[in-house]
Every structure is written in C-alpha cells, then in structure tokens.
C-alpha cells in the first residue's frame, strides 16, 4: 500500500495534497479537535446550548445511535441530542481519544466516553460508551461528519 504523506498519489488514484491530514501538523489538529470535544461537554451537555451543535457536526453529518435509525443532517442531530439529554437529564460527557488515523482530508478517531446522567427520581449513573468519529474540516473548524457509538466497555 502506498503510504500517506510519502508523495505521489493515494490508492484511490488522487494525488496527495496539502489538505491531506497526513501532511498536516497533527498536534494543531488535535488541539482543534479537543476544542470541539470540549464544546460538546461544556455547551451541549453542560449548558444545554443545542445551537452549539452547529460547531460540532458538519452540515450533512450522520449519526448512528444505538437503538434508533440513522439520523442525517445537523438540524435533525440537534433534535436528537435535545431529546436525549433532556429525557435522561444528562450532565456531562468525558471523551478520551484512543486512536487517530489520517483519512485523506479527514481523520478517523476511535475513542471512549463516559456519560453522567441523573434520570428523574433515580440516582446518578455513568454510562461507558465507545465510539468512532469521522472528522472533517468545515468553516475552519474540525467537526464530526460521521458519528457512531455503542454501549459497554
């Protein structure tokens, strides 16, 4: 397999370009990604500012939540998180990146997260999640373009 960042072209027949993440400063990208992740915790979960979803997901993002059908488009995704966070009284989400793989102009991230929730009249619970996110840059921000997760560790 031809290696990313080695010059020449990718196996999909397209020449590698400056936009390919394998040729970019991964440290800077990771910082930008951390900002996006922090927004999800502090704004969406912490303040229930669902408009912040616009800075987290791409316009035509897709999420694949367990127990539901795939959700397409940022507005629909905003509705999904509005319902879930309110119905479970979710308080926070802590994310931990386990693996990050350059993927053309994007990145594929494997990670785990812990969601803290306090459903009505129930004690606080923590839920272990593992996830895969396909990241893309949009409007100068690194955002989630495909997001799938499942429960249990």
């Amino acid at each position, binding site marked *: 397999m031809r290696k990313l960042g080695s010059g020449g072209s990718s196996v999909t027949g397209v020449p590698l370009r400056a936009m390919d993440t394998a040729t970019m400063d991964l440290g800077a990208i990771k910082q930008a990604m951390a900002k996006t992740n922090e927004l999800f915790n502090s704004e969406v979960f912490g303040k229930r500012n669902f408009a912040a979803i616009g800075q987290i997901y791409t316009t035509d993002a897709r999420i694949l939540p367990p127990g539901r059908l795939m959700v397409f488009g940022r507005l629909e995704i905003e509705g999904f998180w509005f319902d879930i966070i309110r119905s479970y009284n979710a308080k926070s989400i802590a994310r931990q990146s386990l693996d990050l793989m350059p993927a*053309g102009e994007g990145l594929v991230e*494997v990670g785990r997260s812990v969601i803290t929730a306090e459903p009505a009249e129930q004690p606080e619970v923590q839920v272990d999640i593992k996830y895969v996110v396909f990241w893309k840059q949009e409007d100068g921000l690194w955002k989630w373009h495909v997001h799938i997760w499942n429960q*249990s560790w």
Partner: protein
Amino acid sequence: MDTTNADLIAIKQKMAKTNDLFNTEVFGKRNFDALDQIYTTDAHILPPGAPPTSGRQAIKGFWSGLIQSVNAKSAVLESVKVMPTGDGVVEIGKALLTIEPPGQAQSQIDVKYVVFWREEDGRWKWHVDIWNMNA
C-alpha cells in the same frame, strides 16, 4: 475527496466482494480463516456490549465465539454511503443478521455499522469496524 467515478466503482466492487465473503464464508460456512481476507492485520472491532478487540487473531476469536453461540446463519451487508478518504474509505452500511439460538426460533436483527476500509495485500479490508442495533 474527488476520486473519479471509475475509481470509486472499482473500489465499491472490491468492497462488495469482501462483504460477500463475510456472509458466505464466515457466517455461511463458518470458515473463520476467511477473516484474513476481510480484516487488516491490525484491525479494530468495537462490538456492542463487549470490549474493543484489536488484531486479526483476536477478531477471529470474537466472531468464532459469537457465531457459534447464537448459531448465526447469515449476515447480509448493504452499503448505504461510501466516502473515499485518501488511502481509505469510510462506509456506512446496514446489515441483516439471521440467527437461530439453540431452543429458539429463527430471528433477524437489524444492524447499522461504520467501517473504515484500507487496502492490504491488494484487497480492500476492514480496518475499523463498529456497529449497533436499530432496536
């Protein structure tokens, strides 16, 4: 990424072959060695309700255990969205699993998945595989 249509059609054909192997060989014939042609050597799977598993040998153990314990019969995979990404492809898909656990009637399970594909030894294989159930 602006992969040409011809490139993408060729890649999709190769992906379809890999997906078909998973159904016919691994589920249909319980030929778990066929997983060598499906997963990259250092692949990762993230199954629902179980810890992540890395490396093809460990992944073989996972599928061998699961398929035999639930007496799985078939896994029909269908690509929903294919996104070329430099050296790889991100695929969103759906799968219909048919199982017949001992003492139970045959049942079907709707699954959706994301696979990050990479080429290894001239084959398009699954490098990261995560899925969950629709219900």
